């Protein structure tokens, strides 16, 4: 059983989704319970896999799907990095399903089972993307993620449908570019197994110098960048996260972009290899793009009044952090980028959960929703403050540690623009969040506008008190910021060991 743990990570949400759809008639509670069980199974399989990875001789376990040996068959290659990412996916999935119960009854009352089924499918897709070692299988799984997220976003308010349509267009272009890149790689290497391709590129200099491989590399990078909303290609993200249902954005905002960043790292280190990637001319381009993304994302975030749109632009900036860190070509920068995948997932998750509670409680989604909230909901605001402080990068939280590694990587690589952008972004985050804290501490609640903003009938159903399940999920997310921050030594040691294994 234990040797099948890697595939269980993907299979249990997949089967859970099917089971949810088969038992639609049993109602939403049954769907919720099935979804919780499926995600809990996935999480325990992921943790078991991490345990096995850490004991494995080279820190790598391989799982052959259906017993077909690579390069013909599809293989899962699990090392410390992607087992950590799958743990993050499974836990975030579990908590957001726990959290979603109360808001889904209000936002998507008639479609709850479908909502859980899509969320589970999205989880299956994301963990598959993280684990697979087959370039084409990766494309199919990326499309599974995309299709489910289009559906999840479109379940939101009026504008969500339009946001979802734009995401369909951009997402399809991105995935198609990736697919084209795989095609060009296949022309030259005749293989789809990532390690097989890397071996061929590393062994053969004329192959590595060929224009076809370069085209493949650029196309795959462009595709992945579109999917992760790197700055000039970020257009779909803020609207999609601002107008989608609370549960959708709570799961998608932390995980989807982060998993795509992992895919980028995987394509860089796993498919093309360190020597090829950092020897190419594209390293500078990517690093400059990341710098622009950080600055632009921060500035846009500062100018937004809608809370979730503001957080969306912060994600655009954070994507810049990770891309920049990965392209410093140093071990510290790459460690920082991968550590930031985890810590940023936890931070955005915490913030989106807290904001979701606040939006539900006040019925408002602009910054004025925060006015005087410390008197009214002190616990939720505490969670929001923890998330905000971690975004700024205060020491005991994980946000500090990841910035530390990223800055270290930037300095080692001599990429000062990246270092400066990181510091500017921290400052902007400080302004951004302290502006909100100030509102929450010192302003008075406008009770009148709170009453008139939604009709009294709806106000009765909309949470007068924060439901316990929502609060528990948000509290665990906030606690995880400290856990990830305090155990940073273990995490970075594992990540470094896995990176050494990938020749970095």
């Amino acid at each position, binding site marked *: 059983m234990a040797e099948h743990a890697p595939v269980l990570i993907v299979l249990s949400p997949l089967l859970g989704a099917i089971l949810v759809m088969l038992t639609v008639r049993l109602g939403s509670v049954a769907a919720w319970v099935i979804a919780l069980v499926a995600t809990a199974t996935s999480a325990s399989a992921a943790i078991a896999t991490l345990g096995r990875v850490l004991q494995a001789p080279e820190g790598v376990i391989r799982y052959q799907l259906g017993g077909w040996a690579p390069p013909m068959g599809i293989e899962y290659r699990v090392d410390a990095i992607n087992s950590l990412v799958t743990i993050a996916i499974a836990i975030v999935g579990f908590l957001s399903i726990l959290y979603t119960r109360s808001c889904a009854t209000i936002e998507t009352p008639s479609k709850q089972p479908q909502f859980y089924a899509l969320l589970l499918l999205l989880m299956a897709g994301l963990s598959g993307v993280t684990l697979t070692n087959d370039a084409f299988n990766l494309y199919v799984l990326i499309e599974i993620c995309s299709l489910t997220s289009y559906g999840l976003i479109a379940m939101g308010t009026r504008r969500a449908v339009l946001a979802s349509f734009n995401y*369909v267009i951009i997402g399809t272009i991105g995935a198609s570019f990736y697919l084209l890149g795989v*095609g060009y790689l296949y022309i030259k290497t005749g293989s789809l197994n990532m390690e097989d391709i890397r071996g061929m590129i590393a062994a053969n200099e004329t192959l590595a110098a060929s224009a076809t491989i370069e085209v493949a590399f650029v196309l795959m990078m462009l595709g992945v960048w579109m999917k992760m909303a790197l700055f000039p290609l970020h257009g779909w993200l803020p609207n999609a996260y601002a107008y989608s249902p609370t549960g959708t954005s709570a799961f998608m905002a932390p995980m989807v972009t982060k998993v795509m960043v992992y895919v980028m790292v995987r394509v860089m280190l796993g498919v093309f290899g360190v020597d090829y990637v950092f020897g190419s001319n594209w390293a500078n381009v990517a690093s400059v793009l990341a710098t622009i993304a950080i600055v632009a994302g921060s500035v846009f975030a500062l100018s937004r009044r809608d809370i979730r749109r503001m957080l969306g632009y912060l994600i655009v900036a954070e994507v810049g952090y990770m891309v920049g860190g990965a392209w410093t070509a140093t071990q510290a920068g790459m460690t920082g980028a991968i550590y930031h995948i985890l810590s940023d997932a936890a931070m955005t998750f915490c913030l989106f959960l807290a904001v979701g509670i606040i939006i539900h409680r006040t019925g408002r989604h602009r910054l004025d929703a925060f006015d005087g909230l410390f008197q009214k909901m002190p616990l939720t605001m505490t969670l929001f403050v923890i998330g905000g402080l971690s975004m700024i990068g205060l020491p005991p939280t994980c946000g500090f540690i990841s910035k530390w590694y990223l800055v270290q990587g930037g300095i080692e690589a001599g990429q000062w623009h990246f270092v400066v952008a990181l510091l500017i972004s921290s400052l902007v985050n400080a302004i951004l969040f302290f502006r909100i804290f100030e509102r929450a501490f010192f302003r008075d609640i406008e009770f009148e506008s709170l009453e008139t903003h939604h009709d009294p009938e709806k106000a009765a159903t909309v949470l007068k008190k924060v439901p316990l399940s929502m609060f528990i999920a948000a509290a665990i997310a906030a606690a995880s910021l400290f856990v990830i921050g305090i155990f940073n030594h273990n995490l970075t040691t594992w990540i470094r060991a896995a990176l050494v294994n990938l020749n970095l």
Partner: protein
Amino acid sequence: MSPAVFQLASISAKFNYWIYIILMMIGLFAMIAKNNLIKKLIGMTIFQTAIILFYVSIGVKEGATIPIIEYETLKEYNSQKTGYGAKPDIEPQDYDNPLPHVLMLTAIVVGVSTLGLALAIAQRVFDQFGSLEEDEILEELTHPKPAKEPANG
């Protein structure tokens, strides 16, 4: 051969790759520049079909046939299979590479489901905004019409 003729020859020899590029650009243009959402989706389909054309072209070899071994050939092959070297009739270069084609079966399925989902979303856009023209939708978003009757009664 003069350079111009050589260029022309190399273009005509690889004409399917040129067609794929042209189709892809048409699709990309439609997706980005068209105002009507359905036209955007038509562009998306053209774009995906272009990639399928590309993949199918990869697998084709000159003078090769479909990758199915005929029963007669197989029987002959099996009867001749006495030693390691004695397999004269089945050569890989006689058959097209089936793998890219199989990959495209998956990609076609993905493309169809994307299109289906996108059409469903476009329908919901029409229900919500009463229009499929992007500029009219944006106009409706910024200046909502005061008392608007539902689009389809």
